[in-house]
């Protein structure tokens, strides 16, 4: 009898401990690192600044010399539906293809499993109009050498791609896309929220002590290939212009979840 009791007890302890492990796998009160990698590509090739030659849906070949964009306001949703908004002050990043980094901003989020990722491509209108003292880091108008800010029409350039193409009369093309909706008078709003499902290509399991990385592919061909197809010949230069809304609509399709490194 003693022996049987011992076995039963052992089994109970065994299962209890299993169960215990399950529920305590994630501690929602503990935060851990989660990186989001923006891997810039062109169709099925890795994006190579200055050297790679790509072809858009209008049949124009081009090279890319510059690619920069702001990503901000990250929100993550757990598989149980809990929503976590990354504190705004820690939620602005500038992706610059030329800077030689991994382009993988690191977020601090509660431990857990996440099913969707959402972020803003650009800078929200509230921050775009905040007092200058609350615009530090990448939001400083001097950030990136002042390359991502319009002084004459106060506001950030959300997305910038430049390159060369024989399709352009001038030999090059420049798309500087911004417009937060206007402060004193309404105008174009090119702030885009991107929401990506993470369940199909690997749910991130965030836990302290391990590195989890959401690997996104960012296909710059989508800037050109969409509705409408962007022709470099017809529009070699688009900045603060009504046509910029077409480009902004196109580039919302750039992002896709490729895989997760857990």
């Amino acid at each position, binding site marked *: 009898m003693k022996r049987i009791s011992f076995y039963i007890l052992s089994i109970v302890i065994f299962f209890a401990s299993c169960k215990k492990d399950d529920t305590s796998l994630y501690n929602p009160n503990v935060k851990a690192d989660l990186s989001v990698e923006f891997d810039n590509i062109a169709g099925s090739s890795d994006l190579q600044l200055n050297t790679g030659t790509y072809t858009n849906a209008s049949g124009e070949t081009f090279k890319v010399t510059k690619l920069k964009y702001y990503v901000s306001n990250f929100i993550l949703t757990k598989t149980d539906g809990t929503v976590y908004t990354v504190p705004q002050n820690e939620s602005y990043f500038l992706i610059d293809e030329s800077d030689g980094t991994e382009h993988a901003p690191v977020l601090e989020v509660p431990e857990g499993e996440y099913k969707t990722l959402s972020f803003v491509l650009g800078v929200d209108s509230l921050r775009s*109009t905040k*007092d*200058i*003292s609350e*615009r*530090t880091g990448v939001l*400083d*108008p*001097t950030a990136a*050498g*002042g390359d991502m*800010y319009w*002084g*004459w*029409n*106060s506001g950030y350039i959300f997305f910038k791609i430049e390159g060369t193409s024989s399709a352009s009369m001038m030999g090059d093309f420049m798309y500087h896309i911004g417009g937060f909706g*206007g*402060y*004193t*008078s*309404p*105008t*174009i709003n090119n702030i885009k929220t991107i929401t990506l499902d993470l369940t199909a290509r690997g749910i991130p399991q965030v836990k302290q002590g391990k590195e989890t990385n959401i690997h996104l592919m960012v296909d710059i061909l989508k800037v050109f290939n969409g509705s409408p197809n962007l022709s470099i010949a017809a529009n070699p230069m688009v900045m*603060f*212009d*009504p046509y910029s809304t077409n480009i902004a609509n196109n580039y919302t399709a750039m992002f896709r979840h490729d895989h997760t490194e857990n």
Partner: protein
Amino acid sequence: MSRKQFIVTFILVAGIYACNKGIIDMPFMGFQTPDYFPQPTYHFSTNAVTKDGFELGRKLFYDPVLSANNTISCGSCHIQTAGFTHHGHSVSHGIFDRLGTRNSPPIMNLAWSSTFMWDGGVFDLDLQPVAPITNHVEMDNTVENALNSLRNSSQYPALFKKAFGSDEITSANFLKALAQFMVMCVSNNSKYDSVRRNQATFTSTEQAGYILYQQKCSSCHTEPLFTDYSFRNNGLAPSMVNDSGRYKVTLQPTDLYKFKVPSLRNLDYTPPYKHDGRFFDLDGVLDHYASQVQNTPNLDPLLQQGGILGIALTPDEKEKIKAFLKTLNDKAFVTDRRFSEQ
């Protein structure tokens, strides 16, 4: 020296001493709102004006180090004796004498302005200096370069520490110092202002001009700042440049050819007039309103009342209006040592 002579001499000497002292040690009063002015729109809550901040801003305003090749300062195109405009220049020449397309606007009563530039593209005075510093035809610099020049100077780190408590020169403190100087440039000492304060009276011609102004000009050039800060198309024929005005910053077709209503203060010091400086005297401006208004898109309704373009003005009325406008010249403002390069 008799006793009487001594007393007179003493009083004269004391008087002169007091005068000098007054100039040298005039206490810093900070920003003050004249009592017949509206509440300022500038956000003093995030940038209180201090003596050290104002003086730093003034030094920056007159320092060509902000430009790419150390040649152009803010004061180059905003000259105090010209009411902080670029005297005699229809459009300004900046670095390497490159020409812009618009007339340099005055640095005056900006604490009451909610938008800046002729098209209102800048919505916060703190952000305004970024535009000329980075403009290709003005200073052609980056703010980062300008800040680095200041960081490497022997004087500025200490001046920033005095003004902001830290010798780290940030964009925010740099821009706030310039804003402190600019908001202090208040023009409220014209004859008109003396009349408002019951310290003077208009001549009969000035008074007649004042009444005509109230009838024909005041709906846009509203007292006491002599602008309502709105954007309007006043019927100027588009030039070769075909400047679309406020449309550039809003992309709204209803803003095509609209420009900010400028103040009528200090007109004697600020010719030429209009956004592109096309009129060299006030006769040109008044003739435009009387007989040259063009019916371009978005022409202001006030300039096409009853199907008639412009504002009816007889030669006699024009002279009276000009007499009144002269009462808006503020000699004290354009000669105020506090606003001059030191």
